[in-house]
């Protein structure tokens, strides 16, 4: 069907909890599939975004690859959505922001309990860490925010149902949570 909404999703500095919560819409996925087809997403394994209607971004931005992926989504998605606490304010990964990056790396790879012959990973294939974890709205324009850690399945359902119906999305009080 040519008129299906194209949706892309990704997890940046997130835990995939928001994606798991999205899958919690359970059998409503069958109804959703009538209106939506997935482009780049962990659900499809498509590696790069083509032009889409909706991009759902889980997680904040903690490394150089996150920046590139986020920009690819912004370039291709008409509507970009920050999904969950980490995309909105950096979330738990951003709790490292007041600790110098070198100290974080040393703690994990050099001085941590049980580390032997430690070394800080330096493979050219590994994306470089940013000195701070950033919410995505600090890097690209974001159109909508779905708060929660994670947003409940009902939040995804309410939001996507509104968009599919051509309505301005809104969340009732009981679906707005920061935890």
């Amino acid at each position: 069907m040519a008129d299906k909404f194209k949706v892309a999703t990704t997890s940046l500095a997130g835990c995939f909890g928001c994606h798991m919560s999205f899958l919690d819409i359970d059998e409503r996925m069958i109804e959703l599939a009538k209106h939506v087809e997935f482009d780049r997403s962990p659900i499809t394994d498509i590696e790069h975004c083509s032009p889409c209607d909706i991009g759902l971004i889980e997680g904040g931005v903690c490394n150089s690859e996150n920046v590139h992926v986020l920009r690819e989504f912004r370039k291709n998605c008409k509507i970009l959505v920050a999904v969950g606490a980490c995309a909105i304010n950096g979330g738990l990964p951003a709790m490292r922001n007041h600790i110098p990056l070198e100290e974080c790396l040393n703690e994990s790879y050099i001085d941590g309990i049980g580390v032997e012959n430690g070394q800080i990973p330096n493979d050219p294939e590994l994306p470089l860490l940013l000195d701070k974890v950033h919410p995505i709205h600090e890097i690209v324009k974001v159109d909508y925010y779905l708060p929660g850690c994670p947003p409940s399945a009902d939040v995804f359902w309410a939001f996507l149902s509104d968009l599919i119906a051509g309505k301005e999305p809104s969340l009732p009080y009981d679906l707005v949570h920061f935890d």
Partner: protein
Amino acid sequence: MSQTITIDGKEIPFSEGQTIMDAAIAADIYIPHLCHNPDYTPHGSCKLCTVKVNGRNCSACTFPATEGQEIQNQSDELEKDRKRITQMLFVEGNHFCPSCEKTGNCQLQGVAYYLDMHDNHFPHFFANREVDSSHPEILIDHNRCIFCNLCVRASQEKDHKNVFAISGRGINKRLIINSISGQLKDSDIAIDDCAAHICPTGAILIKRTGYQVPIGERIYDKQKIDAVALAKENKDHG
């Protein structure tokens, strides 16, 4: 003859010496607020209770009610201002709700939910703030302090102890503790003090009590802050 003010077109009575906030609470009208608690001297610092009085912005918690005032409490402009103020409070500190024991019972969160705030709009400060866990029963997480001054007032006015103060200005503003070491354990605070229980956010917490009520079943998970605040403040002062 009783005197009246008008809030959003509704005429309400007030008595001499009442602020606009006092009169509003008595008339069951909610004006969003965080630094205000009717048990303590008004402080007027959070600015969430900004209303238009005869066309000019004033803090309802400190502004005296006078005969015939025309007050606007609900408008698109005021709601937007209040949302921006709340967003500024969120980015100024480090408010990571999923990792905070106070989540669901937090008035900062309650106000954000009430204002339908989904994002923080501004770039985050990610300020470097400390946690003081020195006291055996009371924890201070400065990351969550919004400088509402309620603990300062509670300690002075109710506990008669003077445990807290706000020091510095602007970005250097911080909550300080009145003890030689600067740590809570060396202060006069006790677990039964009003100051230990007054914090509207998760900055001052009683240890080992945080998860007695599960997340999802807490105050603002179930009820909007306007109903919660009016029920409490009217019961105590109505």
